[in-house]
């Protein structure tokens, strides 16, 4: 079994409208690199020049914000589901 990444609407142009992408990476950092090799251009949308996840990008592993885990070093195991979600307003 592999890991799944949910691609948010603003990035689906890069994934040929694929919503759910399977990956093999072992960490979030590696996942971003793996996505980049398959969908060129996606990396710069997610991380800034310094390689940090962009300010308005929230990444979740199984519904937990990676900032509560180990950020880019957060390990991934088979069956994990990763969501990439833009920050949204209050309510």
């Amino acid at each position, binding site marked *: 079994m592999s890991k799944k990444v*949910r691609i948010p609407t603003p990035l689906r142009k890069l994934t040929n409208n694929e919503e759910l992408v399977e990956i093999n990476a072992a960490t979030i950092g590696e996942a971003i690199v793996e996505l980049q090799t398959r969908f060129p251009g996606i990396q710069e*949308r997610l991380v800034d020049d310094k390689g940090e996840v962009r300010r308005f*990008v*929230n990444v979740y592993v199984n519904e937990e*914000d990676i900032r509560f885990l180990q950020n880019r070093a957060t390990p991934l195991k088979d069956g994990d589901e990763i969501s990439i979600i833009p920050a949204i307003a*209050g*309510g």
Partner: protein
Amino acid sequence: MSEQHGFMKALKCRECGREYPLEATHVCEFDFGPLEVAYDYDRIKKSLTRAVIESRPKTMWRYRELLPVATEPTVGKQVGFTPLIKADRLAKALGIRELYVKNDAVNYPTLSFKDRVVSVALSRAKELGFETVACASTGNLANSVAANAASAGLKSYVFIPSDLEQGKILNSLIYGANVIGIKGHYDEVNRLCAEIAGKFGWAFVNVNMRPYYAEGSKSMAYEIAEQLGWRLPQHTIVPMASGSLLTKIRKGYQEFVKLGLVANSETHIHGAQATGCSPISVAQKAGLDFFKPVKPDTIAKSLAIGTPADGFYALKVMRETNAAADDVTDDEIRDAIKLLAETEGIFAETAGGVTVGVAKKLIASGRIPKDSSAVICVTGNGLKTLDAVQHHCGKAREIKPSLREFEALLAQEEKVNA
């Protein structure tokens, strides 16, 4: 273009400046930066003067050129222009020369500032042809979407944390909205809604309609400036959940200066949070320009957003206006709710307690000088968060319908008070 879009020019990314068409979209495809409405201020300046504004009905729509609708609003035409109270008794209690309360606890129709943003979002949603509207909410927004959608004949779905105050849940159900309680805190509701919004063709007021929605908050700033006699306050104290309101109050003041409606005077915009959910105030006090997300634990549920979307910009506004942030505990929130009620006769919800409590702290510490003038923004009504104060304001004393018993009661109290 102008006839089609009113005074709006485009949606523009706040990070990189890329422009997008005026549709139901909220995120820049390149850096995920939030999109914001850009206006044609030269045209607005020709049409919006003090005299024009004063000739219009007393609602938030008297500033309609500065609000993102293409034509006349169709939803929430009566919203806004809430009282600005000169709060002399509260001023005395807090030890400040001059104090005002902007009282959105009596906003129409659902008793919170959210009616402002919803009125804009739903008017725009109708312009864009939507028939179903939705939101992720900590309560007040859900109430407002439910009520305004009902009166506009729109179908609504509101998503809330399932542990909300009973009053706030009932206040959405009554309007026939589809109320979905999510077993989780607001940030989780938010995440789910971001995913739902991508899938269904609905107008999610704080997701894909956010650029329009958020602009509604500016009307609070316009009203404050007009009600003060066309001037900016020296200090404004604003509650922060996502941080959006604080940034829009600033934008509202700046637009009035840009249009020559008020003089450009020094104005500080301070932020208030609950200690149990204070990612922005903690960052501000530490001098950081970014925040660390938190898991909320506070009675101020309407402010319980651990990952504040506009936290970064709120910090920037406080830095740029040389302002402060602070936070208050649950006990301080309850005390402040009671203080506001006992001095000014205004029953605010927990967020109002946060704002008054933080104002008290900032005045006591000198961050807001005692000889200055300040405005406190009260954004919601205490009748919706009764649970929070239920066991903290004493009890009614019961007697038989007998004069003798009443006299005995008074005598006993006099003894206690003596």
